[in-house]
């Protein structure tokens, strides 16, 4: 490596953008060349001095005042009034579902619905459509029971201006669905049929948790 070549690589060397071979050549040249060491030190000094350039500049009061005034005017995120429909019992669910669809896209939602129908068909057994209907009834029942605690937690959190941690809403929704499951355990005559139990009762809990997660994504930002 010549001195001239070294000056063309000094910047990359300072940033560590070198292959081990290049690095070794660079190091060898520097070890035997005083002027190139001076050059590299000047390069380092240039980078360091550039870094001091902005630190000494002051922000005009006009700017900081405008920014602070804007910050004060901003609707507070945690206590912002939610849209009226989000306060209805079904609101958080609908909002959560919407944001889920927005985030994951309709194809994933379609796949989920398809999977649900396949499960329903499997659990429904051969040629007994009423079983599928009964199964969907159980699923919706569980989701409906999950809705109440979910809405309550969201409502209280907003009242208290409390920011919910990521796992809270899914856990609450899942717990609600489990509660529904316990009730159904008594009222549903088909809980003894294992496919029915897995496809509708267990799926209900999962779907509830999923909706809780989706609700978490959307609601605190409102």
């Amino acid at each position, binding site marked *: 490596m*010549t*001195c*001239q*070549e070294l*000056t*063309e690589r*000094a*910047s*990359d060397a300072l*940033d560590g*953008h070198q292959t081990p071979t290049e690095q070794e050549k660079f190091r060898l040249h520097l070890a035997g060349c*005083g*002027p*190139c060491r*001076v*050059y590299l*030190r*000047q*390069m*380092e*000094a*240039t*980078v*360091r*001095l*550039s*870094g*001091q*350039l*902005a630190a*000494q*500049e002051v*922000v*005009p009061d006009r*700017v*900081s005042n*405008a*920014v*602070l005034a*804007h*910050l*004060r005017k*901003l609707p*507070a*995120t*945690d206590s912002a009034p939610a849209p009226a429909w989000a306060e209805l019992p079904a609101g958080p669910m609908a909002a959560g579902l919407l944001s889920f669809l927005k985030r994951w896209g309709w194809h994933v939602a379609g796949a989920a619905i398809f999977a649900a129908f396949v499960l329903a068909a499997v659990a429904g057994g051969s040629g007994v459509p009423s079983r599928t209907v009964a199964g969907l009834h159980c699923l919706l029942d569980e989701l409906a029971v999950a809705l109440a605690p979910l809405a309550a937690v969201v409502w209280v959190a907003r009242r208290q201006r409390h*920011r919910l941690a990521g796992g809270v809403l899914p856990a609450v929704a899942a717990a609600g669905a489990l509660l529904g499951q316990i009730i159904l355990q008594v009222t549903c005559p088909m809980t003894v049929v294992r496919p029915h139990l897995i496809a509708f009762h267990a799926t209900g809990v999962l779907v509830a948790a999923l909706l809780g997660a989706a609700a978490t994504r959307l609601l605190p*930002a409102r």
Partner: protein
Amino acid sequence: MGSPDKRHRTQQATPESEKPAKPVSASAEDMLLVQNILSRDESAMLALVRRHHAVMVRVAQAFVPSPAIAEEVAQETWLAVLEGLSRFEGRSSLRTWLFQILVNRARTRGSREMRSLPMSSLGAADDEGTAPAVDADRFAAGGAWARPPVEGGDDPESVALRGELRARLVSAMEALSPRLKLVVTLRDVSGMSTEEVCNVLGITETHQRVLLHRARSKLRAALEPYLERRSS
């Protein structure tokens, strides 16, 4: 006939550094700062403004025709940042996000003022890529120094940025082409990483390295007489 084939080959030959940089996601510190600002912590917001405003104005200047407009763009950016802060998800660092908003706005404003700077449309071998780091006449035929740089009275590591040296650096920075100024401002003045600079400007790592090398070399050349002369 041959063109798709050629394209395919070029893609295969693309080295790691030609690929778009991976986003650097936000640190816990960033997320905490965002939380604090959202809960109306004015000192947190002021600290953020103090840290970045001067650099933001410099960056905006590369896109718009006057310093006054650059100030305006930077100030508007802060308001836009406040509006959008509750939607900040930490997919990039806060600084990257901030400067992406700034660059978008400055670019829009610049093209409205008839001075656009299409960063991505430039190859690495534009006018800035051809000048040597040090004037060729300072080297002998074999590439060894003929007129080598000289160590000044002060150790360059302890030289402080003030007075004449500062003025010289400022004017050398101003004299850089907008693209060189942009890269060296983000990387060295603001202290961003290579990845962050690439993400903000939408350029490849290789292009960033070339531009940064040119910019630093020019700045060093401008400071050389001062680094050599000064002595305590």
